[in-house]
């Protein structure tokens, strides 16, 4: 019911805006103020004064949800509409533990009610078009939303054409990627549960850059931990397109050797070219050999989410969105702020949920300053912490702090700062789960 009413409000606002468009921006601002008034949101702040502007946020992952939250927290009287295709937030971080059977999908699922409670309108829908000139977005059903500033946090989509047969195999359910949390996470868990003892689980890792650099190695560890205990004659085969482990290398090598020597095999330079079938088994076709697997988990090569491409924002390597780091605005379209994995990363900046959350705060501060006519913060800072489980209980981290460099117009890590764990520890496993609770709460206003 809530969802219906917010959609209805969106439609009526669009009609009002369409009717008053000749009056220009001022009319739009005052109407937005009405929409945020008595019949509008339940936020404690922002209802007493007219809205300073309308922001539409596309994508309710770590980037988009944090942007919506902080626009309300810091802007107060900013009219925020978040458009997300899924009904709930399902976290990629910690979801490998669901695949390993050590957590449930409920443990990594959170509602958008916190954002509703702070006055953001949540619309479940799929944005199919962005009209930057007219400053409006269109949903699959035809509903349109006008905006003063647009935040686009589309995550990644897959470059299916890079691996022959992959899209059809994923569509049929024979192969899963599990690189977007939710149904795919559960599908991989079911495949592992159905796999016979003595079976082969093969995991294909694409060439960097991809979402969550240490994620595949964490997955290899927790799946090996599950199989070692439940199906000890099985094997984990890691087929890495990269020449070496791309993140926390020493720590993962140690875990592979110390915990999973008998069960896990790591192969570098093993780029997946094609997938197929042979006598009931799945086939991973590499450059010089075919590898048979009972469960074949392919993390496909990735690029910015499709909506960024269709909006003409992808301007780097035909894959990523270049941004102005002071405001997170797309280089190709000022007024559209792009966050998270979809961006062309600054040096040593990971594609992570934590980083998307940090991007969102830079964008929220900049948008509020722009709407108020204030100067944008010239010295933003972002930081990243990423925990990976190497067993059901023990974790390792990598951390970095990135300061804006005005001369080079990019974020750069501070020399001497950051680093990785000295060793895998149970303490860090507990901190990893606490990190998740705090980050989910910060992102979703829980």
């Amino acid at each position, binding site marked *: 019911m809530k969802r219906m009413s917010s959609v209805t409000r969106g439609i009526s606002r669009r009609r009002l805006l369409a009717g008053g468009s000749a009056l220009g921006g001022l009319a739009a601002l005052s109407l937005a103020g009405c929409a945020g008034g008595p019949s509008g949101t339940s936020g404690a702040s922002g209802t007493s004064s007219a809205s300073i502007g309308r922001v539409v946020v596309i994508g309710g992952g770590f980037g988009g949800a944090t942007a919506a939250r902080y626009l309300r927290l810091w802007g107060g009287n900013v009219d925020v509409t978040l458009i997300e295709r899924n009904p709930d937030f399902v976290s990629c971080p910690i979801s490998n533990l669901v695949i390993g059977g050590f957590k449930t999908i409920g443990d990594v699922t959170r509602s958008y009610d916190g954002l509703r409670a702070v006055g953001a309108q949540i619309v479940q829908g799929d944005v199919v078009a962005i009209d930057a000139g007219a400053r409006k977005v269109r949903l699959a059903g035809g509903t349109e939303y006008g905006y003063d500033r647009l935040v686009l946090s589309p995550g990644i989509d897959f470059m299916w054409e890079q691996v022959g047969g992959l899209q059809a195999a994923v569509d049929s359910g024979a192969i899963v990627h599990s690189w977007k949390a939710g149904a795919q996470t559960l599908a991989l868990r079911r495949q592992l549960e159905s796999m016979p003892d003595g079976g082969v689980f093969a995991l294909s890792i694409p060439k960097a850059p991809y979402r969550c650099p240490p994620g595949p190695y964490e997955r290899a560890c927790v799946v090996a931990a599950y199989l070692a205990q439940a199906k000890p004659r099985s094997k984990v085969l890691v087929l890495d397109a990269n020449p070496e482990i791309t993140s926390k290398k020493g720590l993962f090598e140690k875990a592979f050797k110390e915990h999973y020597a008998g069960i896990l095999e790591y192969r570098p330079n093993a780029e997946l070219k094609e997938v197929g079938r042979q006598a009931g088994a799945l086939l991973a076709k590499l450059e010089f050999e075919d590898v048979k697997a009972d469960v074949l988990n392919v993390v496909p090569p990735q690029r910015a989410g499709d909506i960024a491409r269709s909006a003409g924002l992808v301007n780097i390597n035909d894959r990523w969105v270049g941004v102005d780091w002071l405001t997170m605005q797309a280089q190709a379209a000022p007024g559209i702020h792009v966050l998270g994995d979809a961006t062309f990363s600054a040096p040593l900046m990971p594609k992570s949920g934590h980083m998307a959350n*940090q991007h969102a705060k830079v964008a929220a501060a900049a948008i509020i300053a722009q709407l108020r006519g204030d100067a944008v913060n010239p010295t933003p800072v*972002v930081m990243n912490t990423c925990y990976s489980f190497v067993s059901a209980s023990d974790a390792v981290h990598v951390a970095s*702090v990135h300061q804006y460099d005005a001369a080079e117009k990019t974020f750069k890590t501070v020399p001497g700062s950051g680093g990785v764990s000295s060793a895998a520890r149970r303490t860090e496993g507990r901190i990893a*789960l606490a990190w998740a609770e705090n980050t989910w709460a910060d992102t979703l206003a829980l």
Partner: protein
Amino acid sequence: MSPLRCAVYAVLSTCAAAAPALAQQATLARNLAATCANCHGTNGNARANMKPLAGVPAADTVAAMADFKTGSQPATIMHQIAKGYSDEQIRLIADHFAAQKPSGK
């Protein structure tokens, strides 16, 4: 302009210039402190047994960060993170958290 009028003008213009500068500092402090929220909670109201920073006296946060930087305070991760912030940034972060109300969550 008389000396008196000159002095009054100087004071007024300094105040007028100082107010936006103070607001800018507060905004910068807010932005910097928000980088800590992923572990220490929004505005320093941490959950799940992480250290809350809301309401912590600024001097305590500044001292802790200095100890993390030198390594005199052992840590799993904070020694790596502390070195990423300047002393001036840490002072702003500490001031921001000191002014936040603990939520008691």
